[in-house]
């Protein structure tokens, strides 16, 4: 195309910024977790048809996130100069990508079996999901600050704002951990009445949802490394 265009430009010195797709990638992860929240709701209400439908939608989101991740990776050749270290950027992209991966996995497990447990466990599961979603949404806010950071080319104040958000994500993830442990304990306490298959299923779900918050915390932590080691 360029050959026919009779254009002689050296301005391909401007490479495409990886930060915009990074933000888009984070919002895909957030979207997947929001849909997972709806799916957990439907699961607890016994609406398995909706669980199936949401599972399909989460699959699509996870795939879109994968494509964005691949694009970012393929465009970061060694000749690209950025205000941050390229390997730091890739290191933070990885756990961010795991958020939608794990959401997809949990969503699949939701479709396998109906919810058959006590009201207390239902509440526990919903609380765990709500806290995880909060953590991921806080993480989305953190990624949003990247564009402002770039705009002011990392002003001290903006860096501090971002670092505060990292600490908040970490604190929220800790809360998720507590809820998760509590819930798993309760699941085992009811093993007599609910049966082994149900226990395994519910534990798998609780661990998976907790893992999502873990990935968000991990990504936040590496985002801090990226900002600090600039």
């Amino acid at each position, binding site marked *: 195309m*360029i*050959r026919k*265009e*009779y*254009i*002689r*430009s*050296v*301005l*391909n*010195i*401007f*490479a*495409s*910024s*990886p*930060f915009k797709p990074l933000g888009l990638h984070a919002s895909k992860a957030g979207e997947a977790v929001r849909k997972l929240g709806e799916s957990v709701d439907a699961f607890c209400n016994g609406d398995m048809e909706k669980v199936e439908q949401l599972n399909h939608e989460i699959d699509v989101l996870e795939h879109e996130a994968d494509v964005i991740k691949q694009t970012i990776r393929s465009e970061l*050749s060694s*000749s*690209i*100069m*950025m*205000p941050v270290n390229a390997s730091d950027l890739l290191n933070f992209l990885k756990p961010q990508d795991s958020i939608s991966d794990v959401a997809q996995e949990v969503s699949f497990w939701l479709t396998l079996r109906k919810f058959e447990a006590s009201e207390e466990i239902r509440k526990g599961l919903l609380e765990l999901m709500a806290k995880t979603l909060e953590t991921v949404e806080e993480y989305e806010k953190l990624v949003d600050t990247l564009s*402002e950071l*770039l*705009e*002011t*080319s*990392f*002003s*001290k*104040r903006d860096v501090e704002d971002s670092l505060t958000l990292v600490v908040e994500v970490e604190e929220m993830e800790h809360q998720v951990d507590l809820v998760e442990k509590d819930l798993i304990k309760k699941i085992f306490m009811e093993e007599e009445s609910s049966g082994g298959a149900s226990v395994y299923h519910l534990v798998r779900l609780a661990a998976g949802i907790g893992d999502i918050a873990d990935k968000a915390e991990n990504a936040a932590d590496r985002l801090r490394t990226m900002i600090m080691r*600039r």
Partner: protein
Amino acid sequence: MVLFDPLLILLVIAGLYMAWNIGANDLANAMGTSVGSGALSIKQVIIIAGTFEFAGAVFFGKRVTSTIAKGIVPIDTISLLDTHLVAIGMLAAVLAAGFWITLATFYNLPVSTTHSIVGAVLGFGLIAAYQGIIAFGEIQWGVLSKIIGSWLVSPLLGALFAFLIFSLIRYSILQKTDDPYMIENRFVILQTMTACYIAFAHGSNDVANAVGPLYAGLHALELAGTTIPLWVMVLGGIGMVFGLATWGYRVIETIGTKITELTPTRGFSAEFATASVVVLHSFSSLPISTTHTLVGSVIGVGLAGGLAAVDLSVIWKIVVSWIVTVPVAALTSALVFLGLMGIGI
């Protein structure tokens, strides 16, 4: 000797073709940065570019034009032997440079019109020396090495200036504000001014690539004295503005959509640095590549942490084109000269 000498007419046509190319591509490259940042619309850029390019060419283009015409090859010595030799040699030089630029543009190689014309004029000097018309020592090697040195220095100087300017903006303005987007809005006005500045700078340096050989021919045929006639500079200016109006706008559009990362503060830094370096060289009568200086300036802004992603692989392409252009243009020019002599012009 009349002004309607066929040689002169050919020199004017070839010079206009070079001017068209410079306006269509080089000027468009320099102006594309203003469109990319969203500071100016394409229409505004074309009006600014046309006006200031023309002004730069007419009012500040004579020094570099004189260097291309008389600074490298001793045309006065050659014209003592035969006044037509200079006109033929210079015609060969513009044809060779124009041919190389056309080829490079079709293949999107980052070749500089400045490097091409300097190489081509040198080629004429070398073949003249080879044929015993002048001595090898009469070629102005000192001036030539100063020119080639400036090709290395100008992008580096652009990078340094841009780095300093953007760092200053960064520490004194961007990092102290609550609303960086408002700062960007304020820089739109400043960037409009640097767009004028860079067009003026470009005109003052690059017009020489088109009309330097024409002036050499006029001078040798005793149709022009030691000062360059105004109409020559006006001709070059018109040619470049014509190139911008007929093709350059498309190049600007293409570039503008590619470089949305260049916000007004970044664009201002890169343009101000580039224009200053180019004007400095125009003042020192040295022909340099505006586009290569601009690339250096963009890298400078990137080094200061101002850009999300800069692709440094362009540097290698430039270095290669730099090394290839001078010998190729020189050789082509020498061959064209021999060809023109052979068919008895």
